[in-house]
């Protein structure tokens, strides 16, 4: 019997689909026309933390900026990278060649890093708001890339640091075995060890095809560690936490440090199980009047899915991009290095993150917040899930540029 690999069928189909469904991009004409490409996961593990809601946030940014009134003709296109770096990089290359001025979103660090290389090669602006790897502003940084929202350094120090401070000295990790998971695990390990703690074991599982975490959870339980560190994201985190609950891990006193949790994940887990969980985000919809106003504007475009920090990053990123284009002119927008340089020059101000700025290595600098998930009885409105425990300043949230090895930073 002949067996066709499903993966190769899928891959070919995806590239073919991407090639044929692209709208023909408008030629840069008399009017001030721009094209923004949202490259995200629209069908897999990360589609609720990126995907359609990211597109809605981009559209909301254009509305709030008043692009139409100011004479801009902005086309927003979208593409699914399917969590495969080769598909993501191919899509980016094609988009840039066809005149896409800004590529945004990109959950999945492996894809995020691949696209950073393409953006530099084609000299196009690239705002990554949904990958975690701190390498985007470290060794892989370039003059075309801005890393919005969060990174592995912030997560490992904020959530990891908080767990150690509460007395969680011995850890067992369950790690998504790719660029993101292993880096997050290593950086958290450094935080744990610096505080005198130990790591008793690590189960690095194959990504993205793992859905049953029970055997890793049983290993974690038998290791006797105080803290279970989850170096994963999206649906994997949801499954890990739900199954940990089934195996009585939390009930037996082991604490869970879910290093990357988005509000969409908490929603999927449900407060009954998620209550008490400690996590870090740099945006929460119910934080202040501005974040609530932004959320109420964007929600009609994305019903049933409140924006998480990465999606809010798409909003803030496009807002700032449009302000920069307004200054340097639409003709210069196709020069990625020029737009990004202008974006770094101006402080940012938007409803999602407030007043922040972009550092020379491309790092978006904003405070991060340590949250605890509410008990079911404490939640009064839909998606009212977090209590804020602590605010970390922008400077303390991210690694110092001198230590990250970014070639853009002068020693």
């Amino acid at each position, binding site marked *: 019997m002949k067996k066709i690999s499903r993966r190769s069928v899928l891959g070919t189909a995806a590239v073919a689909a991407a090639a044929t469904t692209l709208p023909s991009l408008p030629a840069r004409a008399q009017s001030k026309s721009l094209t923004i490409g949202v490259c995200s996961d629209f069908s897999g*593990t990360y*589609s609720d933390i990126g995907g359609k809601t990211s597109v809605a946030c981009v559209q909301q940014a254009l509305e709030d900026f008043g692009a139409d009134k100011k004479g801009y003709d902005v086309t927003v296109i979208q593409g699914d990278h399917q969590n495969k770096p080769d598909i993501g990089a191919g899509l980016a290359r094609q988009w840039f060649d066809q005149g896409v001025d800004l590529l945004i979103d990109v959950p999945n660090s492996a894809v995020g890093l691949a696209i950073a290389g393409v953006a530099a090669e084609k000299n196009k602006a690239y705002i990554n708001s949904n990958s975690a790897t701190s390498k985007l502003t470290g060794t892989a940084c370039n003059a075309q890339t801005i890393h919005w929202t969060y990174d592995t350094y912030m997560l490992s120090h904020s959530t990891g640091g908080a767990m150690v401070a509460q007395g969680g000295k011995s850890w067992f990790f369950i790690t998504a075995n790719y660029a993101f998971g292993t880096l997050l695990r290593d950086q958290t390990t450094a935080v744990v060890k610096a505080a005198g703690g130990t790591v008793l074991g690590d*189960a690095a599982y194959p990504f993205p095809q793992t859905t049953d975490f029970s*055997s890793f959870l*049983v290993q974690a339980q*038998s290791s006797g560690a105080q803290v279970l560190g989850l170096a994963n994201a999206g649906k994997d985190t*949801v499954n890990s936490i*739900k199954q940990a609950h089934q195996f009585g891990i939390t*009930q037996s006193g082991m604490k869970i440090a879910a290093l990357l949790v988005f509000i969409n994940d908490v929603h999927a887990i449900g407060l009954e199980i998620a209550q008490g969980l400690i996590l870090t985000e740099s945006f929460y919809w119910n934080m202040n009047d501005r974040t609530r106003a932004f959320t109420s504007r964007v929600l009609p475009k994305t019903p049933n899915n409140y924006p998480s920090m990465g999606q809010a990053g798409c909003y803030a990123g496009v807002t700032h991009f449009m302000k920069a284009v307004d200054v340097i002119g639409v003709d210069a927008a196709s020069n990625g290095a020029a737009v990004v340089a202008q974006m770094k020059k101006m402080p940012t101000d938007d409803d999602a993150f407030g007043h922040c700025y972009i550092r020379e290595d491309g790092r978006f600098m904003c405070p991060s917040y340590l949250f605890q998930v509410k008990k079911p009885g404490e939640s009064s409105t839909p998606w009212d899930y977090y209590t804020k425990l602590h605010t970390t300043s922008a400077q303390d949230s991210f690694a110092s540029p001198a230590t990250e090895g970014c070639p853009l930073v002068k020693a």
Partner: protein
Amino acid sequence: MIMIFGKPAPLLFGQLLLGIINGSFYAMLSMGLAIIFGLLKIINFAHGAMFMVGAFVTWGLLNYLGINYWWALLLSPVIVGALGYVLERTVIRRIYKLDILYGLLLTFGFAQVLQGGLTNYYGSSGVSYDPPDLLSGVWDLGFMYLPVYRGFVIFAAVIMCGATWLLIEKTKLGALLRAATENPSLVQSFGVNVPRLIALTFAGGVALAAFAGVLAAPLYAVNPDMGSELINTVFAVVVIGGMGSIGGAILTGFGLGIIEGFTDVFYPPGSAVVVFVVMAAVLLARPAGLFGKLA
């Protein structure tokens, strides 16, 4: 503490048990595939999607109609089986005379449609379904905590596999089914409605997938990808067991679940490939699979 190969014995016992649980799903799904392939010669790539739809129907029955888990255990396979029946009568029967690859592509496409449609509606994180009250809680087995529900899954899977095997191998209906695939025109000449028999077989096969889906609903997040993630492994199980061999599919399903469980302990990154390594080795040694006969 007793150590085996440098790992504590209780940990390995735990993995053995978890392996059997995963194996239960492999066995139930690969059994349905083996029946469909054995009798219809259709490589049903929509099998994972049927499993997933079974889980979604379970969730829908509770959330839209207030029908509980125990009824869903019965109703969901019936509903999905009916869907399978319609699918066979309207679409699949048209391609029996074509090359085997057309069936694969047709069912693959159908799986994509189901998956895409449900993703569009429910998102990729999916929805959650709690185990019934009777089966919630945890047993302390000494070497590990076993959620009661997982124990129930093993029990239900063993019963279902045994019953299906008996039905096909030991009853008159089973004999008729097997005869109909060997020589349909001869069986038809005895007055048996072979096309309907075949359609019912397909319906029965996907109903088994839906039954596994109901069992899976409280275990994993009910999401549109849950079937596609499992189906590759299940196909490997069918190939290892021998295409079309029902007993082979059951034994291989449980066996590979156990092998995978141990791989999780000794080398976690390898757990996704170990099944395929076994498949390659088996195909080299026995091209027809462990329990298959060469055509």
